[in-house]
């Protein structure tokens, strides 16, 4: 049997090995993980933080799962190097050879290198350890907490920390929250909602330094406002791909490890996927495309043809009471048209972006139940001119006949069908 080594046991690896072991396996598999555990659903860390879920509940593939499938688990063991020449992976506890290697090292929190970032009490928000630290301290020893970053992760952290009894301030260096997922109008509704639960939000915040005493964080200094007390500072200002192993192994690098459409690195026997790669100039932080990649890598390892096509992605914010959905190119641009529904009374907002009679993006705040429908429309590139007038209101307001025609394949004679109806 050929030897397959997988570095990293994140969600990408979990899904890859699911696919692979569903087929008749040709591989003897070894999986390394720096964290001392198997695969958990990282997306669910926020509910763990907010106390809505327990850590055990979010583990998807533990060591037993892997071992039941004949996979050797080397959890808690960091990989220190790769030698593509000899096809060897060096773990902290010993080397192992491979025929095929998969790098799925993921990413780390980006710790902004401002003054004071090394103080005790400055953490990222990325993994179980970060989460555990927040769970252990928020509202108990850390009463004032500052979250740097008003994106998806930062807001989820802020909500979770607030739920645990801390006074939370969110610092965001852009004019409005979640600027990568929302337009300004939706972000304003979100800001009001976040603030209304007692979380302070400062936008356009230029953080100058983290203040500390005795090596421990005490506060933060932001331009133009009074210093803010802080017992804990959570950096949720973006991620950095973990590329050091790949780089050291001499693989071709861009902003991350470069792969082709087959997710092969510059070494054809080394695949890479997930947050540590760059494919066609694009990097990946959301789970949907990464699961796609897992499937492609599994197919390739099984010797089949498969290529990865980047799809539009959708986002949901997991903050109870602040339901948000965004997908595709929601911020307009040349040749785009916007359908906008604003309901300030029930805090509902919808924007659907149209180009050439097709939906290319959508933002929903409030009732997000129709989010996936819009996402489907984006992915299907469905022609929507027939339903444009009611589109923004969702599938419940569409003529059932027109609705089924929307997702019909190209060769369905829609016109004829409609003529008969």
């Amino acid at each position, binding site marked *: 049997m050929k030897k397959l080594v997988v570095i990293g046991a994140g969600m990408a690896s979990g899904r890859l090995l699911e696919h692979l072991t569903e087929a008749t396996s040709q591989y003897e598999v070894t999986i390394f993980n720096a964290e001392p555990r198997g695969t958990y659903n990282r997306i669910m860390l926020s509910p763990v933080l907010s106390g809505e879920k327990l850590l055990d509940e979010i583990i998807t593939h533990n060591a037993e799962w892997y071992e039941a499938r004949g996979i050797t688990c080397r959890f808690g063991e960091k990989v220190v190097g790769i030698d593509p020449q000899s096809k060897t992976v060096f773990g902290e506890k010993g080397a192992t050879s491979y025929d095929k290697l998969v790098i799925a090292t993921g990413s780390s929190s980006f710790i902004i290198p401002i003054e004071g970032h090394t103080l005790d009490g400055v953490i990222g928000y990325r993994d179980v350890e970060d989460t555990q630290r927040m769970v252990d301290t928020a509202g108990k020893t850390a009463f004032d907490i500052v979250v740097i970053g008003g994106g998806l992760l930062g807001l989820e952290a802020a909500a979770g920390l607030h739920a645990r009894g801390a006074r939370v301030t969110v610092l965001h260096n852009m004019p409005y929250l979640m600027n990568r997922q929302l337009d300004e109008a939706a972000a304003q509704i979100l800001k009001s909602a976040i603030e209304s639960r007692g979380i302070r939000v400062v936008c356009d915040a230029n953080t100058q330094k983290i203040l500390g005493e005795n090596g421990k964080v005490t506060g933060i200094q932001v331009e133009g406002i009074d210093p803010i007390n802080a017992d804990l500072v959570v950096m949720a200002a973006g991620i950095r791909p973990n590329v050091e192993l790949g780089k050291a192994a001499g693989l071709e690098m861009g902003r991350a490890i470069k792969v082709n459409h087959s997710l092969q690195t510059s070494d054809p026997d080394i695949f890479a996927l997930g947050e540590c790669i760059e494919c066609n100039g694009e990097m990946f932080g959301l789970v949907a495309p990464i699961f796609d990649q897992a499937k492609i890598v599994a197919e390739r390892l099984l010797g089949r043809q498969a290529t990865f096509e980047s799809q539009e992605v959708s986002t949901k914010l997991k903050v109870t009471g602040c339901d948000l959905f965004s997908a595709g190119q929601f911020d307009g641009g040349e040749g785009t048209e916007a359908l906008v529904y604003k309901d*300030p009374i029930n805090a509902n907002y919808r924007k659907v972006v149209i180009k050439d009679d097709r939906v290319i993006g959508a933002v929903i705040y409030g009732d997000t139940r129709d989010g996936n429908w819009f996402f489907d429309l984006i992915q299907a590139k469905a022609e929507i001119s027939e339903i444009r007038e009611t589109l923004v*209101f969702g599938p419940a307001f*569409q003529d059932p006949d027109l609705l089924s025609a929307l997702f019909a394949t190209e060769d369905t004679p829609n016109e004829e069908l409609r003529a008969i109806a």
Partner: protein
Amino acid sequence: MTTANDIRSTCAYCGVGCGIIATPNGDGSITVRGDTEHPANLGRLCSKGSALGDTVGTTERLLAPLVKGKSAEWDEALSLVANKFKAAIAEHGPDSVAFYVSGQLLTEDYYVANKLMKGFIGSANIDTNSRLCMASTVAGHKRAFGTDTVPGIYADIEQADLVVLVGSNLAWCHPVLYQRLASAKAERPNLKVINIDPRRTATSDIADLHLPVRIGTDVVLFNHLLAQIEERSAIDASFQGHVSGLDKALEAARESDLSVCGLDPRDVEEFVQSFVGTEKVVTIFSQGVNQSSAGTDKVNSIINCHLATGRIGKKGMGPFSVTGQPNAMGGREVGGLANMLACHLDLEVPEHRKTVQDFWKAETIPERAGLKAVDMFKAVAKGKIKAIWIMCTNPIVSLPEADGIRAALEACDFVVVSDLSAEVETAKVADVVLPATGWGEKDGTVTNSDRIISRQRQLLPPAGQSRHDWDIISEVGRRMGWEEAFSYASPAEIFKEFAELSAECALYGRDFDISGLVDVDYEEMLPTRWPVRADGSQTERFFADGAFFTPSGKANAVSVTFRDAVTRREPKYPYRLNTGRIRDQWHTMTRSGLSAKLSQHLPEPFVEIHPTDATKLGIDPKGLVELTAPSGTAILRARVTDKVLQGDLFVPIHWTDVFASNGRVDALVQAVVDPISGQPESKASVVAAKPFEAIWHGFAVTKSDVAPKCDYWSRARIEDGWRIELAGRTSCDVEELACLVLGGQGEVVSYTDEASGIARFAAVDEGKIVGVLFIGREPLKLSKEFISSSLGSMDPLVLAGRPSQDMPDPGPTVCSCFSVGVNTILTAIQEGGLMSVDDIGRALRAGTNCGSCKPELAVLLAQCQNLQAAE
């Protein structure tokens, strides 16, 4: 069952004269049901009658007199009216003043008005809106019978074997008669119904044969029939001893060129065969016959056929005019028209005048006919009429060349209007507006189309300071110096005097005689068919005995020849404009427009146009159409339908400035009249049509009463508010319009699609929707019934313009009584396998109250069955 609270009265609307039982609820409202003991309707009511309760009350009412737009005391207003009339008479003679009254006045009101004008002012310048309704029938009756006599009774319609409907959309205009006919036909399917009408109407549904005769050519068709009656030896020789002039009439009839009617010869043959071969024929005719420059001839062409066959005044036979107003007949009886005297006596006959003058102890009585409606207003325009008193009618909406009527009244020295509301167009140009009591507050009598005199009883106290018409007129009479002649204290007194006058007039042996009712217990009087002679004898049907009221005692068959409509189509005005009523509105909507229920059936003024014409003109099926005539313009919603003939248009008569920006069809109708009856040719004007080039369209639903300002608007009442259609030729400031329509109430939910020109707003106040506005570039394809029902709801997703899938859209209302929409009915038919109109009634209750929607239900059934057959 009746209770102590129940009051028997008569419906306010058409000339069928249905009996109602009204129950005042003690809070100013009433509940109305049909009176099973009234011979006209035997308990039935139509959609309008059923909704009478929605139309009473003080909303929109004028509660005190207005002088020059300011509230005034009755004393001041009445003295002003009396003095102005006296001054005009003193300076310019009695013919310088005029009364323009109404078929909605009660007989007692009418009698006093006629007496004041003809007996005391000394002019015959009293005419009535009945001139627009049945003057041609009056003239035709008089030419044929010597008097204005309706020979038959309603039961004849049920007893006939053939009912010919000419120019009558009975299903919508006289729904209870239609129901009686429909039930008779259901019981005896061999009762044949032939419908002669340029339009395919709701009435055509019951017809075995529909003849879409070209507008204005009825004389040709009935002349052809008359000639064929002779040809096929169907002349009743035994009756001809009672008829003169038939030879000449036949001579003219034989000359007729049937081709002008535009009919399929096979259909004509079926009609002729049916008529010739059926003894029991009733020919019902209405406005399609009367409202024509050849109206009187049309009436006589019909009567000729009945005279030739001797089918008149016998069970199940006869020509039958059905009138449009509740008391058109009462007006005819008291003589409240410019060319009548009283009690069916003639103004031109000196003895007749003397009898009436002596009875009234009148100083004077005119020897010549006065000005008929159209001429009366022409005289106003020319300044010959110095003072005019308009009662209970709205000529700025209802007379032809209506914009000219407005100008004439604006220029008139002194205009008095007695009405319920100061908002009607005519009241707005009046010097004095007198608040009159409304239908539910009045007390008196009315006469229906088959000569039944019914009591109309007071159900509610007068609104504000309003007074009864007879009381107002009498008071003015007294203030003009005729204390004794107008000292009436009650309608009973007036009725008694009228009955006594009829006793005097009976000496001439005419038809009208109610001397047997002189001492009737007025309060308890039951519906009674006239004549009721002094000896108590009555005549159910006239003329079976061959005794007519002409000097010779013989009926006249009148020789008539075809005269086309006066206005001719020309390149500039290539369309023929037909007008008429719709099912759930009546006249100028002052009453029916108050009812949310009645306003949903057809909520917007429209024009029916043939698909070929619509395509040719580039008219969007949901778009607006601009009609132009030499006298004015109208903007109307298109209804593209092959129910109208190519080249014809149909527009309803009801809309006024209160309900639409440009919906008054009479602004287009040309002031052409029948030379004998003076009745306007309301159904054969010529107009140009083109798309109304709107660059935006709007639809709003509002809780409050807003006055839209844009190129086109129309509005209709809904439960707790209004629905409004809007459109503009120039770009609109969306925010400004939203502000105007929604009135800045509450918070606003919005939906915008700027690229498509779509903007939608919902104003929400205290959690409830108080207004919505939809704007788009194209005519709006929305579920307007669903949107209208959103008022007061909590769900701003109404901005989708249609219900979500789990909340089906009822569609436009078909059954007004139970508010059942077309989609609900179609779904029930398809999913419930309903096979008949009765099935629909059992499933949805639709059509089970008044039954006015039954023809439409039948059409929906047929549609579904055709679809199933095709599958």
